[in-house]
């Protein structure tokens, strides 16, 4: 199939019949992954701190340094979490925090080294806002910062912090967070030194369809140049407990308060139909990104199963621990067995993979 341009993509996003766009994405997925396997990774999110100077308006997880429930995990606490992860067959930890103003590069390199001294586990860590912060703090280039982190033990970089790669939207959502070009730059530098990363997109807040297309196009262009994205993960904004939801004007046609977000919360999350449409478009547009993840953490297992027919070929992580989405009022707890069963009953073969999508074990 020929690559589609931005205008065609915008038209699909706005006007396509859901089944039409879904079928197109399903066909592309079948061609790319003809063996009918849906993969997942066993890993754990370790959020080493919830202190963050960015204070994004869509986030319910961050705290100030002085806040009574601010925390910074000790290395021993982190080791204990890694022990548990390995005991459960985990191959990766996702190490991500807020941007803690008191932590410098030494903290990170010491932590990475001490983990690598003890464990052979993939460290998928520090999204572009964290890398960018360290570079600025220590007056290093992004490349230098990444090389230091890699030498200390960082293996790959998660695609968080992308939100929507449109500065107009970022100005509203996260004025203190790095701009689109900076996010893309960290990823490009990482790819250039041979690190693999993922890319994400958080939609369903205040963006327009055009912003989603800009985001997808930025990812596709970078992938053409650098080629280091292993997967793309779209997920939808979860409004509960966020500043964005509390300060938003009534969402038509919802003049009266819904119970879900409380009387003051008028911002409704993207619906299932919106999610499937964006997911399918991502599969269609990103012809150079091999894997698309379904987000059961935000969508629930049943819709994630449906997502496997709307372009997704990966079920993401078993999420032994997840804190950020949970803070926004969404908590779907499942076991590895639940995930395997969910993949199978949706009509696919289930397989555990590593960070680089190599299959480790089939079920």
């Amino acid at each position: 199939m020929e690559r589609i341009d931005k205008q065609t993509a915008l038209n699909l996003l706005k006007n396509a019949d859901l089944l039409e766009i879904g079928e197109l994405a399903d066909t592309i997925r079948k061609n790319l992954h003809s063996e009918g396997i849906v993969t997942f990774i066993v890993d754990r999110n370790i959020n080493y701190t919830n202190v963050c100077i960015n204070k994004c308006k869509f986030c319910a997880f961050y705290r100030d340094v002085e806040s009574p429930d601010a925390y910074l995990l000790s290395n021993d606490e982190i080791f204990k979490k890694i022990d548990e992860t390995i005991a459960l067959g985990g191959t990766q930890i996702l190490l991500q925090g807020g941007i803690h103003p008191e932590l410098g590069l030494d903290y990170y390199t010491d932590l990475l080294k001490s983990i690598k001294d003890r464990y052979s586990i993939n460290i998928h860590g520090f999204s572009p806002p964290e890398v960018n912060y360290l570079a600025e703090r220590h007056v290093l280039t992004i490349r230098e910062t990444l090389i230091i982190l890699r030498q200390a033990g960082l293996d790959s970089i998660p695609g968080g912090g992308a939100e929507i790669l449109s500065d107009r939207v970022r100005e509203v959502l996260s004025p203190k967070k790095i701009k689109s070009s900076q996010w893309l730059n960290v990823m490009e530098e990482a790819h250039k030194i041979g690190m693999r990363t993922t890319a994400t997109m958080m939609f369903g807040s205040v963006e327009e369809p055009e912003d989603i297309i800009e985001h997808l196009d930025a990812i596709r262009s970078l992938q053409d140049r650098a080629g280091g994205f292993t997967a793309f993960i779209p997920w939808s904004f979860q409004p509960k407990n966020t500043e964005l939801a509390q300060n938003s004007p009534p969402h038509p046609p919802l003049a009266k308060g819904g119970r879900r977000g409380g009387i003051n919360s008028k911002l409704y999350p993207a619906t299932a139909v919106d999610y499937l449409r964006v997911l399918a478009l991502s599969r269609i547009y990103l012809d150079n990104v091999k894997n698309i993840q379904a987000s059961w953490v935000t969508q629930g297992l049943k819709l994630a199963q449906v997502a496997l027919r709307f372009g997704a070929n990966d079920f993401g992580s078993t999420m032994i621990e997840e804190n950020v989405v949970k803070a926004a009022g969404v908590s779907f707890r499942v076991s590895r067995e639940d995930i395997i069963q969910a993949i199978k009953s949706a009509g696919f073969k289930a397989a555990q993979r590593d960070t680089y999508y190599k299959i480790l074990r089939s079920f």
Partner: protein
Amino acid sequence: MLEDKVFSGERLTREDAIKLFQSDDLFTIGRLASYVAEKKNGRNAYFIVNRHINPTNICVNRCKFCAFSRSKGEEGAYELTIEEIIKKLKDGHGSRVTGHGFSEVHIVGGLHPDWPFEYYLNMLSAIKKEFPSIAIKAFTAVEIDYMSKISGLNLEDTLKTLKKSGLDLMPGGGAEIFAEGIRSKLCPEKISGDRWLEVMEIAHNAGIKTNATMLYGHLESIEDRVDHLFKLRDLQDRTGGFQAFIPLSYHPKNTEIGGFYSSGVDDLKTIAISRLVLDNFEHIKAYWIMLGEKISQVALLFGADDIDGTIIEEKITHSAGAMTEEGMTKEELAYLIKKAGKTPVERDAFYNELWKG
């Protein structure tokens, strides 16, 4: 070709239905079902401002898929008085959750070993007296059969007596799966599939509209599902008394058979195939309590035209691990429908239009 049959309005055969269930072509099935749904109901997708009341969870049956029922005296067993039922209705009636009064109250409960027939008649007339404008949709065929036993009346007289006291419609529960082999494993004490159909036929003939359901995703085969749908289609041909068909996805938690949740893909396919097979049913309902609001919304593009209602307080599915809220507001329901590209229509119990978004 199956497509040609659907477009020309020709009836599907059992073999067609089995082929559809065996097929992996989710999108064609969905498109065909959407075509039929649109022919029947246009772009409309219905919802209702309603409330559930479960008068008791004490039940003489012990269905193995049920996590709601209790024996008398068992911990967690409860029974509501008529005053408590009236109070529950008053509390939600015209509240800000519903925006205005309930159009319908949905009443189903366990088969209580001690309650006399008069209790049910008094319940109906008390509700009617207090809320003359609320339609009462009450008692599954299983409860009707039980009431006929405790009253000593035949089915026809039981139903007519209930109707006189205020019964307007009946829900479609208790159908489970008609196939005897599976039914005897799921719910050996419950009335047979034939008896369920008999109760419905007599109700329809007595002028009582009902719904129909099918519990799927447990032990049944594709053939069992198809057989179930065809029995409903045959009865509907004779009586025309069914308003909506509601496929119910099995919930495994806290039940004796255990097992797994049905897959989201199976849920959508089952909705779509039901729409295609039940050509004489006006409405296919994607019941959001069971399917989750996400799958219910997507189901509107796979042949469903109704997502049920505000409900307020759901107990039965939640006993078995439903992951949904226990109620939704009118605004939330309308929003989900709109975002699926359909026109939200608030209906009354008989599908008369009350509001269009």
